[in-house]
């Protein structure tokens, strides 16, 4: 599957099937800090991603502070 990552923007090829939480663990990404989006739809940690999926892992942490 194609996995799009942001900040910086980059793309990875990852073999499926793999559960969302396992994919995040493999990439050392904390669940609390991202959303996983497949075909414009959010997916939960137990969803299984397949070879032909295109997945965005979108960071949600933002903001500066004085």
């Amino acid at each position, binding site marked *: 599957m194609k996995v799009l990552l*942001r*900040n910086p923007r980059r793309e990875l090829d990852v073999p499926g099937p793999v559960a969302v939480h396992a994919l995040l663990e493999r990439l050392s990404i*904390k*669940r*609390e*800090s*991202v*959303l996983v*989006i497949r075909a*414009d*739809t*959010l*997916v*939960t*940690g*137990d969803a299984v991603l397949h070879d032909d999926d295109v997945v965005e892992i*979108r*960071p*949600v*942490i*933002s*903001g*500066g*502070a*004085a």
Partner: protein
Amino acid sequence: MRCRRCKAPAVIELRRHNAGFCGDCFLHHCREQVRRAIDDHAMIGAGERVLVAVSGGKDSLALWDILLDLGHSVDGLYLGLGIGDYSTSSAAYARAFAARRGANLVEIDLPADLGFDIPTGSRAAKRVPCSACGLSKRHLFNQAAVDGGYDVVATGHNLDDEAAVLFGNVLRWNTEYLGRQLPVLPAGQGFVRKVKPLVRLGEREMAAYCVLRGIDYIVEECPMAEGNRHLAYKEALNDIEERSPGAKAAFYFEFLDKASHLFTSTADAAKADLRPCSSCGSATPGETCAFCKLRARATAASS
């Protein structure tokens, strides 16, 4: 995973609530959390005019959307910071949202209207960029609200923002800031009321809200915020949250319930020493307010 409310397939899991939600029930959850924050802390009275500070990011656009849906009278205020392509893009997202909702967006442009930008201002005043930016926002949002006759300024600070600021203030035992770290700052001394209606929602929830509502927002981080302390605190708290879901909410809300009142006298004492700025008239502890000093240094450096 199934939705806690309607048992349809869930699209998001909130470990803090030990629950999953389908799209519709999640949007309902977000609106209810905002409604509850507004009611619990008496943030917005009936018929009051609200100015929401809009950055083009997920939190402020989601806040504007929810406040409109809850029936409040809300205009947006976008402040152009002069941070290159980032400012150009973020302004476009704010304008697109306003057009889509038929809402009124007030705009102030730091370079065009005040003669400096944040990169120049931070260098000239020897402040980190986030400090110069935050100072400018606080001053100009309040000024715009006073000038426009608004009763309330609403900002998109969410639970993660508040927990991270609290973490930083506790690390340094900054008692004056701890005394002011409240979801509502009352009006007075030339300041309109400031409210944070998103304090019951985390930033992951706000990003999910925007995805589910089809709200486009700037996903890229501000280039000037890279590596700042606030982001490091958020990452540290997310490490704790990963092991102990609900830790961030407990840290912040237990502070409000059990400790914030211990610091209000320090904050009140600091407020008692304020006087009008000799340049703009805003309340300040010195002769000239911090924003006017920043602007003077920045415009001198620009000329």
